[in-house]
Structures are given as structure tokens and as C-alpha cells.
């Protein structure tokens, strides 16, 4: 017996119970649709995150204190104070790091801020005067603070749109006003526009001040939380990373690289790490969606068992006219696979359309450039899984059909 006749028999079998067949495959349709959407929207989100990370500029290297965290329990790496002024001075030296163009120490922390009666807990970011160029953000009003402000520990601040809204309300002019941060008054010199969403940081929620005043006036610390280093050309990033390591090891008197009390992040590496995380999340969600496929498969098995019982007489007749047990097995297996594959195909179409619509809605809603990606891998995975589910859950009913005795089946009423 050929595949063609098998397909034909399976089709006739399914056509005679059209509405039942459709209801049966619903579980598979939903499962595959869910997987397709998770994969497609997940890919879109991943692309968006990665695109924003590119926004940081591939020429920026971040130096962090402590060891590279090895796990959630690696607390030590967070509370480290190894990056100090002398390191910045050493790194600034052209002989040590020739490709360095700019260096920016960073400190941050959360403080209660207030203006009049309004209070708001904000993240304070202490940086150099060229932060807007390094972070690639534009100010809506005012200017960044100056080099002199940094040198003179001045209490000046650039605030995010949300901070402005919280402390001043919609219409009030914030520029030139003085807000209180930890009992100290800071004069506002600039405001960042809405949607200042950047890498890892939402600039809407930030108060940006000179790192010098943040260290001395607010946090009372002598070290930095980060040092950002800009390199002249992208291709010099890797060399510079090595230069930075050498310089800091010298400055910290470290001979064994294993004992480094700092670590370095580049955009390339950060992207790689982010990708690992988002991929894991994506596949986890897809696996959750796949559970519905198992439920759908059980539904298929159930209906195939009913079908085998209902068609006992037909099985008997087919055997009487010469169908071998193998041919009966294949007939019912084909029917099951046909059912699940149809469900899979419908699911792929639904999933792709839904993802496309979702991406359009998300683009509008978040006003970001959310790109629709057709998840080919999810499509093949979906079609393959649906066929596999047909095979697995169809096998038991099909074997049951194949084992039936022809004469008892013919007598079945």
C-alpha cells in the first residue's frame, strides 16, 4: 500500500467527522500558536534590547570593581571599593592606555529627593560633564553641568522627565529651581526629555550630578562604582581592554590575574551575556507553551481511541478484504499525524499573524521600533513537534486497531 492511498484513507476518515476533527486539533493549534508567538515576540524583544545596547556605543568599555560575579551568591563582588582616583589618573596616562579618548568615573545610589512638599525616591547618578555624549542622550531643556562644576564639587543636577513630573508637576518650570537631595540643595541645570530609555537605565527616573559632589556631598565615599572608558576606534577595544587590565594590576599591585579586584565589560560581551539570558527566557516560555501541546496530544489520543472503537466494523471489514495488521496500524497512525500536522500548520499561520499584529501594536504602544521576525526555527519546531505528537499519541490507538481480530470486529455492533 502506498503513502498516497494511506493519505487518502486518512483524509476520508477525518472528513466524515469534520467538526470533531477540528475540535480535536484545537489543543494543538493553541499550543503551536503559543510557541510561535513566544518565539516571535521574544525575538522581537531581544532585538529591541540588543539594538538599545548598540546605542551605548561600541567604543565604550566599563570597568567594574570586584570579581566578575560567578553566581547569585557572589555578594562580595558587589561591595567592592577597589576603583579609586589613582586608577583614573593611571588610566588617563597616554603611556598606559594609548587609545583612551575620555574617561568617566561613575557613582550611584538611591536618595530621597524633595521640592516643596513633594518627595520622591530617585536614583542618583554621579558622572562627568560629557555624560550626555557617552550615553547618547539629548536634553530637552538646559545644558549639562560643566567641567568646572565637576572640579568644584558643585551641587548641580540634570533630572529625568519623570523626576520633573513627580516633583514639579506638569507645567511648572524646573530649570534653575533647587531640589533637596539628602538635605542638600541642588540647582537644576538641565532636563532630559521623555522616553530617555537607554541601556539598562531609564534616564526618566534619574538625577544626574557631578561624580565629585556625589562622592563627597552625598555618599561620603572615596571610590567609584564604575569607570567608563571611551576608545578612539572600535577595532581598538580589545587592545585597550588588555591595556586597562595591565594598568589596573600595576596600580593595585596584582601579579596573579586570578586575584583581579576589578573586571571589564565591553558592549560585545554585554550583548553576549544579554543574549544568553534572553534566549534562556525565550526557550523557557516556549517550553511552558509546549505543555499545552501535551494536553492537545492527550486529546488526540482520546479521540483516536473513540474513533477506533466506533470503526471496529470497518477495521474488521478491511482485514477481511486483505488489510494486514501493519496496514491498519499505518492507517490510524496517518490519521493521527494528519490531525496534528493540520493543527500544526494552522497554529503556525495563527502564530505568525498574531505575532505580526502584536508587533504592530507594541510598536504603536511603546513607540519603539519593534521589528516583526518570522520565527522559522519555531515553525519547523512546531511542525515537527505536531507530527511527533501525532506519532506518539496515535500509536497506542493504532496498535489497538491493528490487533483487533477480524471476526470479532465484524460482529461488533
Amino acid at each position, binding site marked *: *500500500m502506498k503513502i498516497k492511498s494511506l493519505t487518502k484513507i486518512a483524509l476520508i476518515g477525518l472528513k466524515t467527522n469534520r467538526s470533531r476533527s477540528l475540535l480535536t486539533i484545537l489543543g494543538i493549534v493553541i499550543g503551536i500558536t503559543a510557541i510561535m508567538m513566544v518565539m516571535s515576540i521574544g525575538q522581537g524583544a531581544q532585538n529591541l534590547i540588543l539594538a538599545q545596547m548598540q546605542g551605548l556605543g561600541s567604543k565604550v568599555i566599563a570597568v567594574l570593581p570586584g570579581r566578575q560575579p560567578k553566581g547569585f551568591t557572589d555578594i562580595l563582588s558587589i561591595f567592592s571599593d577597589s576603583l579609586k582616583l589613582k586608577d583614573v589618573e593611571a588610566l588617563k596616562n597616554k603611556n598606559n592606555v594609548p587609545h583612551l579618548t575620555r574617561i568617566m568615573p561613575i557613582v550611584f545610589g538611591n536618595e530621597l529627593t524633595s521640592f516643596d512638599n513633594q518627595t520622591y525616591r530617585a536614583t542618583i547618578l554621579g558622572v562627568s560633564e560629557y555624560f550626555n555624549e557617552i550615553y547618547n542622550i539629548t536634553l530637552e531643556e538646559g545644558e549639562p553641568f560643566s567641567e568646572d562644576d565637576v572640579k568644584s564639587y558643585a551641587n548641580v543636577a540634570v533630572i529625568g522627565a519623570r523626576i520633573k513630573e513627580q516633583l514639579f508637576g506638569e507645567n511648572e518650570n524646573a530649570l534653575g529651581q533647587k531640589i533637596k537631595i539628602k538635605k542638600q540643595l541642588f540647582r537644576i541645570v538641565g532636563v532630559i526629555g521623555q522616553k530617555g530609555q537607554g541601556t539598562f537605565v531609564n534616564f526618566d527616573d534619574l538625577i544626574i550630578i557631578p561624580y565629585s559632589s556625589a562622592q563627597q556631598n552625598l555618599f561620603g565615599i572615596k571610590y567609584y562604582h564604575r569607570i567608563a572608558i571611551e576608545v578612539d576606534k572600535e577595532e581598538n577595544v580589545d587592545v585597550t581592554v588588555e591595556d586597562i587590565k595591565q594598568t589596573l594590576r600595576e596600580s593595585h599591585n596584582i601579579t596573579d590575574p586570578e586575584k583581579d579586584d576589578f573586571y571589564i565589560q565591553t558592549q560585545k560581551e554585554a550583548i553576549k551575556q544579554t543574549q544568553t539570558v534572553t534566549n534562556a527566557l525565550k526557550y523557557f516560555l516556549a517550553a511552558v507553551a509546549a505543555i499545552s501541546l501535551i494536553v492537545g496530544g492527550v486529546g488526540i489520543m482520546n479521540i483516536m481511541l473513540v474513533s477506533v472503537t466506533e470503526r471496529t466494523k470497518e477495521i474488521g471489514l478491511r482485514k477481511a478484504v*486483505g488489510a494486514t495488521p501493519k496496514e491498519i496500524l499505518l492507517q490510524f497512525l496517518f490519521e493521527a499525524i494528519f490531525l496534528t500536522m493540520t493543527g500544526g500548520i494552522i497554529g503556525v499561520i495563527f502564530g505568525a499573524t498574531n505575532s505580526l499584529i502584536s508587533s504592530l501594536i507594541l510598536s504603536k504602544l511603546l513607540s519603539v521600533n519593534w521589528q516583526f521576525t518570522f520565527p522559522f526555527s519555531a515553525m519547523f519546531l512546531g511542525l515537527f513537534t505536531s507530527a511527533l505528537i501525532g506519532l506518539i499519541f496515535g500509536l497506542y490507538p493504532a496498535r489497538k486497531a491493528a490487533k483487533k*481480530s477480524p471476526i470479532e470486529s465484524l460482529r461488533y455492533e
Partner: protein
Amino acid sequence: MALIKVNNLEKKYCDDGTETIAIRDISLEINSGEFLAITGPSGSGKSTLLHILGFLDKPTAGRYFFENRSIYDYSEEEMAKIRNKKMGFVFQQFNLLPKTTVFENVKLPLIYSDIPEKEWSQLIYNALVKVELSHRIHHFPNQLSGGEQQRVAIARALIANPLVIFADEPTGNLDSKAGQQIMAILQELNNEGRTIVLITHETYTSQCAERIIKLFDGEIQSDIKNLERIDATKFIK
């Protein structure tokens, strides 16, 4: 030459410890081209015997040679192939697939055969001409009368050109006129040289055969040559 030869055939059924013997010590030979009727009251084992002869069931004891080969030498696959190529079945209940056309019903054995697909349409048409139903080819079984349905079943039985046709009470569900027509077709097939094995409890039907075997309580009571054979074809034409 004996197409079918059985020696001391026995079939026991075991149900919840109680043993029922359906047939016992049956020995007979059926020659190629014979028209044999097996009769007997219900419970005499005639259906069981037919099922064993038709490879649909297996005996619990005794020997059965089909074309001089013992059935114990056949695998289940081979038995299915023999049923497909060399045997045709006609049942009391017609056993047509209800939601498929006459054409599809007659085609059924071909699906499982080695006959090339391009010959199928012609074979189906020829078979339907033989049972005078070529005009009903695209009808569904429920659009046909009982007699017509049984003729479709006969067309299906002879589509693969079998050596022997086993008919299990083929006229049992039909009125006498339709029954006569069925018997006429079977006699015609027999005249073409095909072996017919028929079970019936109707005297008229059994009188159409050349040879009549009477079963009683699972044993052969009599095995006679029918001297007053009715020629059913005469009444129809």
C-alpha cells in the same frame, strides 16, 4: 483437485472457564469450481467453519490445507494477502462502508492488493457490470435497496478475481426476489469456474448449490450431492 482440505477440525471457545465446542471432528474436501452450501440450525457451527475456511479465524485442533499448504505455515501477513488475492467475502449484513460511494466500496480490496492503480477503474466498472449496478457507481449505500447493497458487496468480493467466494447467509436480510437475484449472480460466477462456499439455513438458497453439507452440533450430519439443483438464473432472465 482439492482447493480446500480439512482433517478433524475443531474449534473450542473458552469463556470464563466454561468451554464450548463450536465445531468438532470436521473433515472435508472442497474441489476447485465447486458450489457448496453448508446448512444447519443456528448454533450448529456453520459460521465458525466458514470463518476458519476463510482465514478469518483459526482452529484449535485439526489440520487445514489451502492449495495444499497447511495454514499453520502462513504468517498473519500472508493470511491477509491470501484473503486479499484468493478469497472474497459476502456477509449477511453487507458490511459496506456507509459514508463512501459504491465505487469506493468496491475498490476497498484493491487498496491492499498489488494490482496497479491505473487498472482499478476498469476493474471496478467490470465488476459492477457483472452485478448489473454500473449505473449506481456514484451512489451511497443508503441510497440503495438491500438487494442492490448485497450486489455491491458481491462486486467487492470478486474485484480481485479470487479463487473462492465465501458467502455468509447472503440472502438472510433480503426478500425472496432480491435473494433469487443474488443466487443467480453466485451461480453465474460458479459457472465461470469460481468456487463458492455458502452458508444458509434457507432451503431455497441451499438448493441452488451442487453439494449440501448439513451440520448439527458442530459435526457433519450429511454431505450429499444436490440432485434437484435450482437454476436461479432462469427465473431472473
